[in-house]
């Protein structure tokens, strides 16, 4: 992948999200939240792609890192009352970074003990780790435990969401598409051969986990300050699976594919919901003729995934032979 203009694109994307943010000042409610969700899913999927897709470490605990970032950033910002714009943004920056770093630390804690595990065993351990985080949070009265944590400030906006999404994409792409970054893929393809070629597979795996977790933590912080209420159960195994599906659907190790998959899979449930809400269809009597879609939404979603996996296991968006 040629990244000659990567930095320009990054700055352009950040500028665009700033403009979008200023124009959306008067929009609120559900559509805006869907937009935030797209950005957050993007960050989660692209960061997970670094671990699962590029480095081949099958991690099923990404939601756990998100939780660490969400709660850490919320705890920090909850300390502050009303702030003016500059102070708010400063505090938010700090809180997001802190959440990311806390999550990165968690990523190191997961990455190091799992170094010798492969495939299924790695998946189970990362899954367990995600659950451990969830249970710890559930029993931590200081952050509300099972009753949940209220987040005072709803500081997430389009600028933060898509600006940070652009940064995430840039970092992962820039990292992987360099001589250094080929090491991640080498470790995935053949770890023994990679070691024999001087590639420190340990370092690469741990780096992938730490960087991936960092951005998951950032996504968590954005999520916390959008929805403004956190519960430990909201970051369970099913959420991790949702992001793994995005990575697989996009094509493991295909950043653009994963971006498209993240957008598609975030919009799909919304699209189905809209279908269910259609008031009238020509030729069919009665209101909301497709209301049954609401109840079968998850079934349709799952069936779609099964069909896609059977027909295009290499991912929806893999355009050419994988020789990246």
């Amino acid at each position, binding site marked *: 992948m040629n990244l000659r203009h990567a930095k320009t694109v990054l700055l352009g994307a950040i500028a665009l999200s700033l403009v979008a943010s200023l124009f959306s000042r008067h929009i609120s409610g559900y559509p805006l939240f869907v937009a935030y969700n797209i950005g957050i899913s993007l960050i989660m999927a692209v960061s997970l792609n670094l671990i699962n897709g590029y480095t081949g470490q099958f991690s099923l605990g990404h939601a756990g890192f998100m939780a660490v970032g969400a709660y850490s950033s919320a705890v920090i910002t909850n300390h502050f009352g009303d702030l003016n714009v500059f102070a708010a943004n400063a505090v938010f920056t700090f809180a997001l970074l802190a959440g990311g770093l806390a999550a990165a630390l968690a990523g190191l804690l997961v990455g190091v003990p799992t170094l010798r595990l492969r495939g299924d065993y790695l998946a189970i351990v990362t899954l367990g780790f995600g659950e451990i985080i969830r249970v710890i949070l559930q029993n931590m009265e200081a952050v509300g435990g099972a009753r949940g944590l209220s987040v005072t400030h709803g500081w997430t906006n389009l600028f933060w969401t898509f600006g940070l999404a652009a940064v995430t994409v840039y970092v992962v792409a*820039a990292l992987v598409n360099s001589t250094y970054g080929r090491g991640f893929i080498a470790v995935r393809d053949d770890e023994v051969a990679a070691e024999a070629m001087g590639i420190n597979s340990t370092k690469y795996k741990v780096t992938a986990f730490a960087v991936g977790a960092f951005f998951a933590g950032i996504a968590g912080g954005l999520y916390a300050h959008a929805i403004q209420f956190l519960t430990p159960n909201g970051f369970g195994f099913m959420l991790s699976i949702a992001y793994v599906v995005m990575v697989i659907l996009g094509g493991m190790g295909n950043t653009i594919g994963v971006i498209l998959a993240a957008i598609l899979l975030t919009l799909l449930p919304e699209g189905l919901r809209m279908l269910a809400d259609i008031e009238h269809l020509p030729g069919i009597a009665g209101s909301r003729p497709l209301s049954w879609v609401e109840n079968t939404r998850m079934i349709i979603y799952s069936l779609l995934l099964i069909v896609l996996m059977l027909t295009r296991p290499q991912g929806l968006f893999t355009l050419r032979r*994988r020789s990246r």
Partner: protein
Amino acid sequence: MSALLQLDKATIRFGGLTAVSELDLQVGCNELVGLIGPNGAGKTTAFNLITGVYQPTAGGIAFDGSSIVGRKPCQITARGIARTFQNIRLFSSLSVFDNVRAVFHLHLRGDVRQALWRGRAFEREEKSIADRVMELLEIFQLGRFRHEPARSLSYGDQRRLEIVRALAAQPKLLLLDEPAAGMNSTEKVELTRLIRFIREKFSIAVLLVEHDMQLVMGICERLVVLDYGLKIAEGTPEEIRQNPKVIAAYLGE
């Protein structure tokens, strides 16, 4: 001058099985040494010992003057030993170009942050690496395949690519594990030429494990013969050819 690679009574036991027993092996700078023996003699195990995949149960292994026992494979490669594998182990999803490029991370002067910042220094270094990769590929007539995924190459080309990849590490010692396996006689002649060429052009030592006696006798300066983990003979191809112990080991007694 002491040898480049020195194994000193290197031993490895797997439970009750002694795969390599008190092996004394030396390879000097720019020497071409062959390691031969019947199947199961411990040749690949010896390679794995040298490259750090296994740690010796006893004995010493020294390279370029210092001990490499306990070092990880990636560290040993950084010190100047590179290898190929018996069953080709390329990075299958990477292109031919990237297979070689990945190894150049050993020679990177910038670090990770440079890759993120992507300043002029980074671009310069990436360009320099790209040039050096192409140079290597061209020498071995693999340049035209540079964008092809490595797994799409023919068997012979894949073997050649694996050797090129090992050379990208700029080793002082090259370990070739049965490079002629699966080749026909024409390809073997070509391989012989290739090994001689590599040794001359890159001034490196080569330690070769091979079953094809004709190839081995024709190219190696010195041979070391293993049988059941023990060194049973060492000498020039002439001496080995007539050694009764070697004949017995191969033909059985």
